[in-house]
């Protein structure tokens, strides 16, 4: 099984992602998606279990996705967890910043269910394969 932490302040967006990932083979039999509605909740949830992937939005109040990413990458505990950014952010600026801070992929909203399934499968199957290029390929 795989456990994913989904950090996104829009409940509908979380439901959409959850629906898209339902039954994804890469998640395994009892794969689990843990939802966090804010950066703070993500910080709260991170120590509670071992995650195989973090998917985060960028534009969130207080602690934004980049800050969360930076925290995860600096932390000796979490720095190995692959991280996928999903964001509507139109500007290249955040995408570049995200990747520079160590994100493994960037998926621009709106994305199709297939796109997120693909990106998540790639991230879970080991990011040894060139740091999530596959996830980045669709924007």
């Amino acid at each position, binding site marked *: 099984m*795989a456990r994913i932490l989904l950090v996104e302040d829009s409940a*509908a967006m979380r439901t959409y992602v*959850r629906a898209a990932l339902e039954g994804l083979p890469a998640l395994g039999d009892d794969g689990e998606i843990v939802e966090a*509605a804010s950066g703070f909740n993500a910080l709260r949830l991170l*120590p509670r279990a071992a995650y195989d992937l973090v998917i985060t939005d960028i534009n969130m109040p207080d602690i*934004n996705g980049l*800050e969360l990413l930076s925290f995860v990458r600096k932390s000796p*505990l979490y720095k190995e967890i692959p991280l996928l950014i999903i964001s*509507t952010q139109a500007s290249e600026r955040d995408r570049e910043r995200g990747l520079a801070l160590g994100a493994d992929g960037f998926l621009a909203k709106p994305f199709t*269910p297939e796109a997120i399934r693909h990106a998540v499968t790639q991230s879970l199957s080991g990011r040894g394969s060139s740091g999530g290029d596959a996830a980045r390929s669709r924007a």
Partner: protein
Amino acid sequence: MAESGDRAREEFLSEAQEIVEGLGRDLLALDEGLRASRLDPSLINDVFRAVHTLKGLAGLFGATRMASLSHELEELLDKLRLGKVDLTAGVLDLLFRSVQLYGLILQAEKEGRDQVIPEVDELVRELNRNGGAGVAAAAAAPSRYELDPSLLAVLTEYEEHRLRANIAQGLRLYRLRVQFQLATIDQALDELKAMAKPHGEIITYLPTGAGADADSIELDILMASAVGTEDLRHALASGGVDLEEIPRRAGSSGSSGNTGPSSVRIPQHTPLPASGLGVPSLAPPSRHDEVSHGPKGDLGTLRSVAQTVRVDIHKLDRLMNIVGELSIVRTSMARLVERLRAERIERDLAADVHRLQRTFERHLGAMQQGILEVRMVPLGQVFDKLARVVRQISREADKLVNLVITGAETEVDKLIVEELSDPLMHMMRNAIDHGIETRGEREAVGKPALGTIALNAFQKGNHVVIEIEDDGRGIDTSRLLEASVRRGVISADDARSISRAEILNLIFIPGVSTKSEVSETSGRGVGMDVVKTNIGKLGGVIDVQSEQGIGTKMTVTLPITLAIISALVVLVEDRLFAVPLANVQEAVVLDPAAVRVIDGREVVTLRGSTLQLCRLARLFELETQAKQPTTNGWPSSSGAGAPGSASSDSRPAARPASTRQYVVVTAVGARRLGLVVGTLVGEQDVVIKALGPSLKGVRGFAGASELGDQRIALVIDAPSLVDELHAPGGERVRPMIASRGSHG
């Protein structure tokens, strides 16, 4: 996937609805800020984020119209928040219009229609034109300060802009370091924000990575302020904040962009040794290792993060229905227990069952209360909409209106709030359109140019009262009366003896209006009669008070909830009726000797005041042939064989002398009516179920209710009865249903 896709779509619609409502609130706050020249940048960012989220959602769920509107709005808002465009009243108008259009779009989405909404396309075009404008914001380089480059790297564009804007104002920058307990971080953070707000702007929060364990986390907060270090430290003293000013770079011209490591003043954190973290699942996680199968106890806490859940109102309705069924079981059970106790056998067993039944009742009551509470939402939801309408209409009508809201936190059943929106909206339009005078008129009579509309809500017993009070011209009763006579609503005869309160109530009769011209806003063919009907459907009443030249006050009184009510069950002939207890003042034995006939209406004097009577048996034509009243239309039973009957009709009694009758005194607002019934059966909680479509138009009944043991009672709609019988010419008591069909 299909089913979860539907769920996601539902979620999308309700979230979008919520966002749009929040958007409206924020815009009102911005409007206020603009007028007071105190714009809160975070508010503009909130509006941006709202639209940004809408755009993202619209894209995912294929709501193309919403997506394109959001896209254009986002462009505009992005410029606003990055200081490239100034917020003006004109821009705000565009934004307010968008809120209204989002409403239309959402409505269409909910109904699954994909129709063209020309207003949306028009606004999109306008926004497009508007979007071209914009100037480069004055910006100052953050490099003038000794800021940690790793901090700069994680700022979003907006945060970076706010940093620059604050630097450009020559403010000081501070780094606040705070340790938060994860369990209470939301609350602690809110407190800190509230403490910091008066002294400056918080630009961002950054988890340092240090001090983090399973229970706490350390944050660096970047704040800009005009306040000196010591003063700010003092102001934030209770927040447990370690505060440090970020020094300006010596001799900085703002041109040097490089920040060497030597200048880094925000200290790098040192990671805690892993031994400091006790939870086994905290070991460095890698994919698919045994940690994933860590103690299930840990996982138990994963889902407890969300503080609120969104629930479809229909699910609550279903739960409510189940509770309703249980109430019926309870009633039947109580009856069985009574029988058991009366049997005088197995007394211990009976006592046990009785005790058990009492416990069951208590828990059921708590459950019912709990569900009712869950359904409650603050009236503020609809008040916000009203505030937008006031703003819009007063601008259109070129009237200055100040809306003063109190009691927005008053809670009412969600369904009532939904249904309340249109009637209140219409009343608000009336208040501005017909109530508040033009500036010139107001000044001419010595009133302040700024009109005031007070919107008050408060709870009163089992009811919620909403008042809309304006300080406008008031209702011209003589013109209203004249118009009513001219339109044949009342006869010239009636007009001579009508009271002032009755005249005012004429505004609720279809086709009566004192304004000859039809106005843009309230003259859309929907009159106060529709408002009254809609309020009535919710079990509420509306009253009007008005003083010419001083103002008008509309008072709406509503039940707090619709679903379950306590009712007095009564027997009329052989039929059961339920009178909502909320409308019942008292029940007394009818003394037939005390009944007088005044003006063709039967009345009694009760506690010093006159009470009009209404014989339900007659009204609903339930009397058996033998008891049918004779020529003058009054039932002989009023004499009821009592000696010395004061009734104008002294016919011999047709009813056995032993038959007692009762008067159930119902009160709706300030008006009372005495319902004459046969037997009082008892008090009971009933679940009101709507009558079928064929009976929907029948006035006088709020619905039907099952009482247990397969008996059905019609629930009396007291407000409509009181209206009907108090209306001018109400003595023409006519049957509201002619059906004599059997039921139950």
